[in-house]
């Protein structure tokens, strides 16, 4: 089929299938060309078949009621925007009230809070370009997937806060799940007997700077 003929043909098909012209008009436009008229008959059959489909594809009359019965069984989720906001705001305030002082306090690297049982120790490692960093130590059975560190703002400073009880802990960082390195900011180091060096953290609840 020549290009001009083809373009005419598909325009007629388009108009016919999109209900802009009817069968007679379409055939009239293709008049004088039996090849095109013959080819067009396929499209008449196509339109007929899908129009039948259109008119026959009907859901069961009871479908809306069936849906609504299920909807009725669903829990009501009422959105009360102001209340929602209040709840969020309250939760956020509470979290900030705890986190901000904690962050200020803990930002002085490794200095444990003088609380009776558990203190939250913030570990920091500057390692730009690392895909992942986690911390391993006596407190998590040296399991590299137990305590992943996070670099939320992507500045290369990886952070993890670990709740610890009083005591002495050996630990190390695991970079990209393979490289074990000591903490450059640790106050003490110890050989692990396998050729590596671990960092040491001593936690006591006496005066800060006790270690």
């Amino acid at each position, binding site marked *: 089929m020549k290009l001009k003929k083809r373009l005419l043909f*598909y325009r007629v*098909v388009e108009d016919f*299938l*999109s*209900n802009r012209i009817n069968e007679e008009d379409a055939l009239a436009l293709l008049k004088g060309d039996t090849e095109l008229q013959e080819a067009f*008959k*396929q*499209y008449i*059959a*196509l339109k*007929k*078949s*899908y129009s*039948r*489909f*259109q008119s*026959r*594809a*009907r*859901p*069961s009359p009871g*479908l*809306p009621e*069936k*849906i*609504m019965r*299920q*909807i*009725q069984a*669903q829990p*009501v*989720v*009422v*959105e009360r925007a102001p209340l929602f906001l209040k709840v969020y705001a309250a939760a956020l305030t509470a979290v900030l009230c705890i986190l901000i002082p904690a962050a200020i306090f803990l930002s002085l690297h490794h200095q444990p809070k003088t609380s009776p049982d558990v203190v939250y120790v913030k570990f920091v490692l500057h390692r730009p370009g690392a895909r992942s960093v986690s911390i391993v130590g006596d407190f998590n059975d040296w399991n590299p997937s137990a305590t992943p560190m996070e670099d939320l703002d992507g500045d290369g400073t990886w952070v993890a806060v670990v709740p610890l009880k009083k005591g002495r802990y050996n630990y190390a960082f695991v970079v990209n799940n393979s490289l074990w390195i000591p903490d450059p900011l640790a106050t003490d180091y110890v050989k692990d007997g396998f050729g590596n060096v671990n960092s040491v953290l001593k936690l006591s609840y006496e005066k800060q700077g006790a270690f």
Partner: protein
Amino acid sequence: MSIDEKNTEATELEEKDDDFVVEKVKQGDKEAFGVLVMRYHREIFAFVRALVRNQHTAEDLVQETFLKAFAHIHTYRKGNFRQWLYKIARNCTIDFVRSWNSKHTDSIEEHASIPDTRTGTDPHQLLADSELVAVFEEALGTLPPALQEAFVLKHILEMNYTEMKKITGVPVALLKVRVHRSRKRLAEHLKHFLNSFREKAL
């Protein structure tokens, strides 16, 4: 509230636009959701029915669509509820077809029941409506899903390309190509079928 008052309220709601009704639903009015179900279940059904070619599965998917819409109504932002609903229906259908295909080695066409009443038919008698529909569904089932979807949205649901783009996320130019291809292939398929039908009948 008396039953009459309730009915009046429901009738009033039927005249409101989608976003107004959705607001009611968001405020906890489950009945209001019924207005949306009534408004859209037929076309959503036609959409899904064409793609899965089975009445029961299509009804299940329509149900799933509306249940999901209800459960996530708070995530709907004012704009076009109908399109939002179509997107949900589309996702439900895609999930269904995927899991169906992974469970069944035979393709989804097997799912459609095509009555074969061709033998012994009077050659001059036209195909009965139900047969013609079955032939169309069979033909549609032979197309790749992307072509099926383009054809169904364009010709069964008579949408324009802008709407189609919003629902599928596929660019208009590509949709046009798909619609064109789907028509061509469907027409070919129908021609073959009708020819073989005539031969058989003769």
